[in-house]
């Protein structure tokens, strides 16, 4: 019998609008030393399934309708609250997606680490403060925190994202759990950090013979670490098998769609760049911000060099990819070109005319010719404006339509981005993430711009939706003869869409070249590491990559 055996689990949410079957007849099992991956898009019920095991669901509205979850012979779903506390304390631990919000900002990480040891519900297992501290420091050392002794007394904000996730892992492991649930533990991290964290989880699992449930939307990550995979969609299990079978002998149509949606390989569309006709020329651009990160930095008037002496050009018709990890300054370049942030020095020219240094009213005609698509489709639309109002605003403001033909123009835009005309009077919250991003794209192309700067336009979307939106973007680029700067941290996406790629690191442009050339022969060490860290949705090559 396996360590955890979930059978026929059904969890329904009883909301005012009716019953939502979040988890509908899900069964799986996982044994010590095994890794089970639960893969699915948002709303598939993968997190709900795992939270129910620890009684972390809000009840109501959630209600467990049926099923058992036998952990070492005891049912987690029906045990007493007291017993559940013991399970949480001793046997099952969780790592959440966002390490910043799961750590208390007001308590040192050391104090948070030893808390479960010195206040253990089981009095016999309580440790003294000294013993607990010793144990915590050992563990911090094991998860790869350098100088653990000193870092023990630091606060969460003094760690980087990757280090914070390491602290979270140490916290999860402090009571030596037998089952570790990882809920998208690397989604908020950069690709090179992600590789390190995955490696660490693997190592810790092997040394402790733990069972691991790994929740993820990323098939590449799953391919490398899972022994078994279940694919969930809308609350039901679509496919459950060992990893190789899921990837190589896929049976279910949804899983096939999921696999097909992963951007892979080179751009298929021809390069439309008109060489020698730069639409945008950026020379020696510097964008510095005041550093408010600490009182000392503030007092000394330190500056954060977000973009430090970058020169680049975008040819007319070109799709230029800009990659870099978080904090590399890639978004700031986009915003500097758009004149959304004040630049410190250097210049930006549009079609040969310098536009940096123009006043906001002088910029209005230029704004019509360059537009931006933002990352978060939930934040980039005004929640109190209907789709119609959102799309009509740029048209009317720039005088591209009048009250007699505005309806028809907005409908045209909606057709262009693949939205149903009937949803014109709806508000953004009534749409899914992908549809919202389509609205945002519609707003960006409304003024018939020549240049579009897309800042991580698909990062917040599920993989199948991501593929559709990428294809929409490529289609629009071709039909409207657009020039595009595509900013992303996701190298596979950038490769799929760009003609040429620039690599940013710490505000500096470190490498550039035609996409395929750069992929084949990266010159800089940093680029090599970046390319090496991309997880592949192919278990055999992914495993070979990890072991190398």
């Amino acid at each position, binding site marked *: 019998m396996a360590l955890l055996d979930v059978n026929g689990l059904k969890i329904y949410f009883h909301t005012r609008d009716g019953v939502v079957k979040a988890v509908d007849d899900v069964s799986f099992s996982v044994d010590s030393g095994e890794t089970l991956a639960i893969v699915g898009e948002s709303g598939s019920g993968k997190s709900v399934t795992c939270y129910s095991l620890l009684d972390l669901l809000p009840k109501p509205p959630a209600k467990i309708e049926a099923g058992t979850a036998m952990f070492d012979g005891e049912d987690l779903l029906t045990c007493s609250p007291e017993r559940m506390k013991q399970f949480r304390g001793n046997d099952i631990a969780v790592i959440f997606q966002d390490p910043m919000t799961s750590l208390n900002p007001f308590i040192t990480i050391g104090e948070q680490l030893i808390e479960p040891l010195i206040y253990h519900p089981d009095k016999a297992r309580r440790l003294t403060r000294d013993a607990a501290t010793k144990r915590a420091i050992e563990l911090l050392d094991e998860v790869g925190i350098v100088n653990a002794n000193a870092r023990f007394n630091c606060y969460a904000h003094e760690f980087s994202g990757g280090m914070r996730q390491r602290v979270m892992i140490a916290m999860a492991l402090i009571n030596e759990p037998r089952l570790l649930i990882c809920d998208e533990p690397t989604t908020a991290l950069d690709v090179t950090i992600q590789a390190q964290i995955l490696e660490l989880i693997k190592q810790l699992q092997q040394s402790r013979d733990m069972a691991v449930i790994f929740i993820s939307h990323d098939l590449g990550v799953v391919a490398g670490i899972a022994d078994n995979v279940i694919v969930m969609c809308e609350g039901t299990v679509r496919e459950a098998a060992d990893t190789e079978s899921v990837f190589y002998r896929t049976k279910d149509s949804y899983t096939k769609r999921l696999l097909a949606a992963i951007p892979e390989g080179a751009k298929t569309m021809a390069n439309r760049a008109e060489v020698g006709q730069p639409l945008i020329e950026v020379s020696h651009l510097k964008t510095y911000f005041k550093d408010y990160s600490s009182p000392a930095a503030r007092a000394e008037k330190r500056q954060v060099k977000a973009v430090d002496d970058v020169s680049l050009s975008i040819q007319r018709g070109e799709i230029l990819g800009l990659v870099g990890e978080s904090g590399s300054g890639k978004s700031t370049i986009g915003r500097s070109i758009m004149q959304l942030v004040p630049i410190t020095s250097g210049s930006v020219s549009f079609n040969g005319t310098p536009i940096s240094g123009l006043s906001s009213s002088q910029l209005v005609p230029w704004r019509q010719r360059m537009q931006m698509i933002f990352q978060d489709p939930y934040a980039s639309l005004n929640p109190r404006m209907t789709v119609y109002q959102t799309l009509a605003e740029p048209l009317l*403001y720039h005088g591209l339509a009048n009250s007699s033909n505005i309806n028809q123009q907005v409908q045209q835009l909606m057709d262009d981005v693949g939205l149903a005309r009937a949803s014109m009077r709806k*508000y953004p919250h009534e749409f899914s993430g992908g549809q919202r991003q389509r609205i945002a794209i519609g707003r960006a192309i409304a003024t018939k711009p020549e240049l579009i700067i897309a800042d991580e336009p698909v990062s917040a979307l599920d993989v199948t939706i991501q593929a559709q939106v990428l294809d929409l973007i490529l289609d629009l680029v071709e039909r409207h003869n657009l020039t595009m700067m595509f900013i992303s941290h996701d190298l596979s996406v950038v490769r799929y869409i760009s003609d040429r790629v620039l690599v940013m690191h710490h505000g500096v442009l470190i490498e550039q070249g035609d996409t395929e050339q750069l992929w084949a022969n990266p010159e800089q060490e940093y680029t090599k590491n970046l390319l090496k860290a991309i997880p592949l949705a192919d278990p055999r090559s992914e495993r070979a990559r990890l072991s190398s």
Partner: protein
Amino acid sequence: MDDLQVMEEQGSSLWRDAWIKLSKNYLALFGLGVIVLLCIVSLLTPWIAPYGYEEQDLMLGATAPSLQHWLGTDIFGRDMLTRIMYGGRVSLMVGFIATAVALVIGVLWGAIAGFVGGRVDAVMMRIVDIMYALPFMIFIVLLMVVFGRNILLLFLAIGAVEWLTMARIVRSQVMSLRKQEFVEAAYSLGLSQWTIIRRHIIPNTLGPVIVYTTLTIPSVMLLEAFLSFLGLGIQPPESSWGLLINYGVETMEEYPWLLIFPGVTLSLTLFALNFLGDGLRDALDPRTSKD
């Protein structure tokens, strides 16, 4: 710009949707009904009041509710129903006008300070701090001394004090809105700052603003009572709900109806305002469903 106006009138606007939703919220409709009724009664008071507001009957004195005097009479033999009706004119006017003054100044001040930020924000908020620090009573007394006792001035004075908190609430809302991507998107569309404030920022601050407004109206009514009690507001024989309650408290033990009836009227008004405020807040949030 005119075209943008046209667009707002066409089709589904925030306000039209809000009205559809409000009309399905019975509690809010009840609130609205009570407020409208009170306003109508106040407007028509000089014609429909059963007695004159100064009409005394000293021989009668304070009597319990009867057929002649539905809500009883006060110690001077004045009809309470009449006095509550006349008092409502003053209280409602203070409530609405002073709150409107606070609303307009507070929202604009807060929105501009929060949106422009930097030095402008610092200066504008320091002005708010200074106003906070000014002793309110001295401020009003000074106004009265300089301009003479005038009921309109009283409204303005109360409004001029109440806007401070509103400005702070709006400013903090705007500061977080300003960093949202949809505002950045509006910038990159080339919209002017004023258009962005008007179309993208202010509508998104409505929720807290409406709630605070419904809280301001009652506190303004009570403030008026306090000022009148000190002799700075309106003077007997004129009256307001707050004043009636104040006098009612003094004679609470012998003549409880002198406290109960004005108290009930004021409470009913505040309930109605709160229901209406909650309903408006939900109705103006597109995220709540239409049915």
